[in-house]
């Protein structure tokens, strides 16, 4: 009986007192603008998208319910598979490289130098440029004959690829452009680095640990929650990559609707956009977004499960 008592206590939800109920009411009222926005601008569109995925809808006339037709079409749509492949290719490269870049930049930003503020500003600067501007500049930087990137590669004696004209290099170009936003993530990583107690490093130094050992045994384990956060958000954003592909292909795919060589820059959301806004197939686009939602959910769940084995939460061992 004595052992059962705490369990009973835990399972019963404590009743709120009068003060707590009042605080809850005021709390909800204070966040009510956000709550309203969340319900009206996030929850409702998500639910409505589910509904639209079972309809034929051009965006103008009322939707007509057509059952599972849109989902059946997805299975046989070659461009669905092409765009899914392009997006997974991008995500599989951009996310891990992004983590690595952010970590390197954060470590660089965390150096004890007098002018570190200047370095931080320089490293962060590309992140504040809009993707639109970066992508547009990259069209010219990556020009195979007249671009600066190939000119530098040529000086180094390296081959000069046809960046945006070759399907594989076009996909890699997207990954490269994404890295210019690494500064944003570096700040998150920097906050994580600065949250690591200095005593841990001092103890390790007393025990004779070198820089690499300190990084591997202290920094990396304590940064794993931040890395996981980066991976989850990066995964979500990676699966939704759009702007850079849209701009690199001339905004809408030029006159013929093609998105890069052999549609190599047709990312999933780009294809979704084309279906919705170029072809007026909102119902089909809704079905595509539902599939993306489910895939994102499954991938995020899988990453969380995988992370159990390597993410170190300080509180757990406290």
């Amino acid at each position, binding site marked *: 009986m004595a052992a059962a008592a705490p369990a009973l206590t835990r399972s019963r939800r404590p009743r709120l007192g009068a003060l707590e109920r009042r605080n809850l009411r005021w709390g909800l009222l204070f966040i009510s*603008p956000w709550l309203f926005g969340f319900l009206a601008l996030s929850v409702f569109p998500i639910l409505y998208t589910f509904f639209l995925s079972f309809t034929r809808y*051009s965006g103008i006339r009322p939707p007509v319910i057509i059952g599972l037709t849109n989902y059946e079409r997805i299975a046989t749509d*070659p461009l669905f598979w092409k765009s899914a492949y392009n997006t997974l290719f991008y995500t599989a490269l951009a996310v891990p490289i992004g983590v690595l870049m952010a970590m390197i930049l954060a470590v660089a930003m965390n150096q004890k130098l007098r002018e570190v503020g200047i370095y931080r500003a320089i490293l962060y600067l590309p992140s504040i440029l809009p993707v639109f501007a970066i992508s547009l500049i990259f069209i010219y930087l990556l020009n195979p*004959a007249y671009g600066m990137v190939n000119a530098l590669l040529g000086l180094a004696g390296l081959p000069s690829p046809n960046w945006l004209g070759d399907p594989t290099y076009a996909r890699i170009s997207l990954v490269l452009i994404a890295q210019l936003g690494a500064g944003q993530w570096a700040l998150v990583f920097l906050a994580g680095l600065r949250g690591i107690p200095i005593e841990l490093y001092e103890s390790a130094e007393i025990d004779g640990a070198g820089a690499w050992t300190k990084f591997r045994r202290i920094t990396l384990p304590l940064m794993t929650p931040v890395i996981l956060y980066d991976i989850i958000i990066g995964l979500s954003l990676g699966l939704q990559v759009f702007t850079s592909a849209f701009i690199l292909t*001339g*905004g809408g795919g030029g006159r*013929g609707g093609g998105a890069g060589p052999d*549609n190599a820059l047709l990312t999933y959301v780009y294809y979704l956009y084309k279906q919705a*806004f170029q072809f007026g197939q909102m119902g089909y686009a809704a079905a595509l977004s539902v599939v993306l939602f489910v895939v994102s959910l499954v991938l995020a769940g899988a990453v969380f499960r995988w992370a159990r084995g390597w993410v170190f939460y300080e509180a757990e061992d406290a």
Partner: protein
Amino acid sequence: MTRSARRILWVWLAVAAIVVNACGGAATPSPAQQASASAPASAAASGGSAQPSAITGASCAAGAKEVKFWTSHVPPDSDALKHIVDAFNTANPDTCVKMTIVPGSETDIAKLLTAIRGGAAPDVYMADRFTVPQRAAEGVLDDITSATQGLSSQYLDFAWAETQFEGKTFALPFDTDARALWYNKDLITAAGQDVSALDMTKGPATIDTVVKIADAVSKKDSSGNYDVLGWIPGGPGAGGAAGAFDQGWHYTWGFTFGGTFADLTACKVTPTNPGVVAGFQFLYDWAKNHDPAAVSRWVASNRPVATQPAQQFPFWTGKLAMTISGDWRIAEQAKYAANGHYDFTFIPVAKQGDQSATWAGGWSMALIPNSPSRDQAIKFMKYIAGPDGQRVYTKESTHLPTIKDLLTDTSLYDPQHAKFLDLLKVAKNRPPLSVGAAYWDALTTAQGSVEANTMQPMDALNQVQTSIQPQLTTAGC
């Protein structure tokens, strides 16, 4: 009211103010905004509006009824459009047409769709004519049948047919065009080739002849990359994307090899028609013989974006000796390459004695549903797509008119331009389908794969069949 309740009220008021302000731009204009509508265009466009600036209507009279007209055309064609709109505004002081150049292309109307949904749509939209049935099926365009009774007889039959959907009229035909093989005499002669082989009076040259001349012109640099290209019969398009570099589209080569793209009676698309497959096979073989990667590299270097200004087009800069293009190049040549020596001839044929094929496209003027200025908008559409508007556009842009009477008005054509009138007589046109834009894009994707040599023609065209026929069956003919 308690202090907390007052705070919450303030928060809600702040949110409401932001929302109302944000929505204000798209909603019905306030009296102040209405007053500014008659002010100069530059002033009306200022103030942080998300709408692009209108390029006409600056000197409209106060109180004139506004008609918003959107086009995705850019100079030099948009210059001609502007002149027509200005003339209309001068002749009709009670109406003020504000013409705006918006992003978009033949099959991309994303800007228009979002504007309609956002309640900020134009009254008149310049739509690629072959997409009209599809846009009508989608509900993007308004039915103008009753307002256009009796007009059909003045237009070319194929152009009028493209504006119809389910027996109703959804646009007025504007211009049309025809395609030919343009060539740079100086480059061909400098390569030691006989340019007279391409003389139009000798009839169409064979594809083999044109490829032989083009290959003699092509030059590679020390790295093995093309510096000058003799010809690209198809694509890739700007930046290396799937599609035609100029006008060597799937339709061009499908028609050249005797193909048909749809059976309208049976309501079926026919991308695997033998003639279409033969056209794609030619593109596949040409790419294979000329190294798709090298050609793509040249395109990415010389035409990195589709929005490249016309004066930088490689045909005018001496980097390309031959290109399949249209009548509008006449106006461009006069403006951007007046000192060069250019001519055009028939699109080459598969074998000697074959009939050369070409096709006619063109645009139209369509009314957007729920226009607050419907009557004025239709009046403007009848003007710009009527004899007055088309006369100016034909003369200035060197496109061709769709009004039959203007085809015989010799004052509109110089001798070069007049040759395109002969081509128009035998021109084919794209089938007016309720999935016309989607079909075009699917064929373009297939063309890209075939020219990259990543798919065989029949496989790529089978994919087109698989993806488009169900859409056509659903939408109907």
